[in-house]
């Protein structure tokens, strides 16, 4: 080991931070080299002085002041934290009150705009022929007018009309689901389709009036009356029923 290397390692040698082999090599070199030995001694002396350094030591009054300041800071921070929570609570309380008011107002508006339950129910029952006050029975395929053969619309097959179900969702599903839909809606479906296809002239209008539970509200329903169904309409309806059973 040469002098340059030893002098480079001298600071670490003074703190005994070299490996055992490094310490041994430096010590061996220092025995032979006075200059390096002197450098190592200087570093050792510096290390001793540094290790003996104690720094200024204040009296207990200073420490008491520090402790008091720490306690005050802790108390202040606790108070600040409490005030933050209080503020947060106040904000949330106000927000909650505002939201509750909005919800109440919206609910009141919705209730005011909602149609009366009794009148709507009676109207539905009347349409299905189940209401006490109903005049018109539910439409049946037999009561529909006969389609005219010379008309373009009349040339359509009843089976093709199935695809024109209002809502159109029966086309996107398989046959089984389709039949169920037809079963569920049955007569009304046929009646609606043929009325739309034929657009016949009504023989007369029927006026139906419902008196709701509210004396100020009366529902008046005007509907066309087509009279007795013709033979061709009956045949079309039968054909329709056969198609449906065949698909099933």
């Amino acid at each position: 080991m040469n002098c340059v290397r030893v002098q480079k390692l001298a600071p670490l040698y003074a703190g005994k931070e070299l490996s055992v082999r490094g310490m041994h090599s430096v010590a061996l070199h220092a025995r032979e080299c006075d200059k390096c030995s002197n450098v190592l001694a200087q570093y050792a002396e510096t290390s001793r002085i540094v290790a003996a350094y104690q720094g200024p030591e204040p009296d207990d009054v200073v420490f008491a002041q520090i402790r008091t300041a720490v306690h005050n800071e802790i108390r202040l921070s606790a108070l600040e934290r409490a005030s933050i929570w209080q503020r947060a609570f106040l904000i949330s309380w106000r927000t909650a009150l505002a939201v509750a008011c909005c919800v109440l107002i919206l609910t009141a508006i919705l209730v005011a705009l909602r149609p009366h339950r009794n009148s709507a129910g009676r109207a539905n029952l009347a349409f299905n022929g189940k209401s006490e006050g109903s005049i018109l029975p539910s439409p049946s395929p037999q009561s529909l007018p006969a389609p005219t053969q010379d008309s373009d619309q009349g040339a359509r097959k009843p089976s093709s009309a199935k695809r024109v179900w209002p809502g159109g969702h029966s086309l996107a599903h398989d046959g089984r689901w389709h039949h169920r839909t037809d079963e569920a809606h049955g007569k009304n479906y046929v009646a609606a389709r043929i009325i739309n296809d034929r657009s016949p002239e009504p023989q007369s209008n029927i006026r139906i009036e419902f008196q709701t539970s509210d004396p100020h509200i009366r529902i008046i329903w005007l509907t066309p009356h087509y009279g007795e169904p013709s033979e061709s309409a009956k045949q079309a309806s039968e054909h329709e029923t056969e198609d449906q059973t065949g698909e099933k």
Partner: protein
Amino acid sequence: MYMSREKIEKVIMPGESGAIALQHNINLRDQAGADRGDWRGRLIERVRAREAGAFDDLMLHYQRKVYGVACKVLGNVEDAKDATQETFLRVFKYFRSYDSKEDFDGWLYRIVVNVCMDLARKRHGPPTMLSYESEQESIGTRSGLGSDDVEAAAILAEEQSLVERALATLPTRERAAIVLRDIEQLSTQEVARILGSTQSTVRAQISSARTKIKAYCDRLQMRRRG
């Protein structure tokens, strides 16, 4: 229970032989260390449980150590006071994050060093150092030394002042490394853990710091001679 070194020395019986006395001394020291560890563990548990007065006891126990490290790293008495205060505040604030398996002293040293680094970053201008004369006077009056001891006290004060000035010339990280390693007598591994760096980095910092301190001392001596 904590037992000071003086107390341990007094406990040794005068009639005992050297070997027995030494063994007795070692046993007592081990027991004292264990008691001290138990006492410290109990104190930490008390602080964790937010027991009244526990944190005050903790501050009383560690205030000198914290202040000493802060003073040596910062080289400024006023900054050291601020650092001590801030350190205890952080200890109080982050005590929940302290893992009881970890060494509390190491955790505390890490906080002190971080606080000192923050303060050193904020501080503008060179540190205000104690003058050699004022230090010499304070040592003479404080310890009430006789005329024979004044020379020794003067040498000691000179050395202290020299180290203080030499430390002030170092960068903050090197200063922290040398303070922890050479003055606080921690191992290189512990210093590396406290500073959050590797052992080789700490060794390089310590080596550089020792070289600079030695160079400073050499320059000062040459100036005095010349």
